[in-house]
């Protein structure tokens, strides 16, 4: 499956990109998380959440082909 990953805030800084397409052979958000930790070891040091279809999702969530967002802690206002 080819999925779009979008990086926000400090995570865009760490990965040095706002988004990328990855061809992956995995099914869950948890598996994606492990894959990204290999690609970007620095990520391990940071708190972040995943979102798919504009909704926060946990690690059991199935990847459905929509873009996946990596969101660091929110600091609006």
């Amino acid at each position, binding site marked *: 499956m080819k999925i779009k990953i979008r990086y926000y805030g400090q995570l865009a800084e760490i990965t040095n990109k706002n988004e990328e397409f990855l061809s992956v052979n995995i099914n869950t958000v948890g598996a994606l998380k492990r894959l990204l930790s290999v690609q970007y070891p620095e990520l391990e040091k940071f708190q972040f959440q995943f*979102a798919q279809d504009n*909704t926060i999702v946990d690690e059991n969530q199935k990847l459905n082909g929509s873009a996946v967002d990596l969101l660091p802690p929110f600091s*609006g*206002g």
Partner: protein
Amino acid sequence: MKKEEIKNIFRVGAIDPISISKSIANHQSKTTIGAHSIFLGQVRADAIDGNEVTAIEYTAQSEMANKICHEIKEAAFAQYKLSCMHIYHSLGIVKKGELCFFVFVSGPHRKSVFKALPQIVDEIKDKLPIFGKEIFKDASHQWKINQ
């Protein structure tokens, strides 16, 4: 009340005080309103280790933020007796002393607006994927953390 569509809360740059007075003036034809309450967030020139914040640069997952903000508004309309609600948040650079966040709640009586306003402000800060980068005088930066 008719189902409202999802609005875009984001504005590029600082929120202009003039737009606030226009927003207030727009309510003078709504004569069932007795009370308005407004929250404004302003960028502080916080000093951190002798370095001073000169601006905050905001980014967001704006589609998700607008969706969640819409849900927060709908919940507040269901919970309190309110007439209207207007919310703006800045994207991009907002300099110290400028306004980055505007929440405007109106209703027949003050009790409802006083309960709704802090709740809406807190939820927006907690739940919307917005990210502030504090830019210092010496051009270094750090990522804002909400208490």
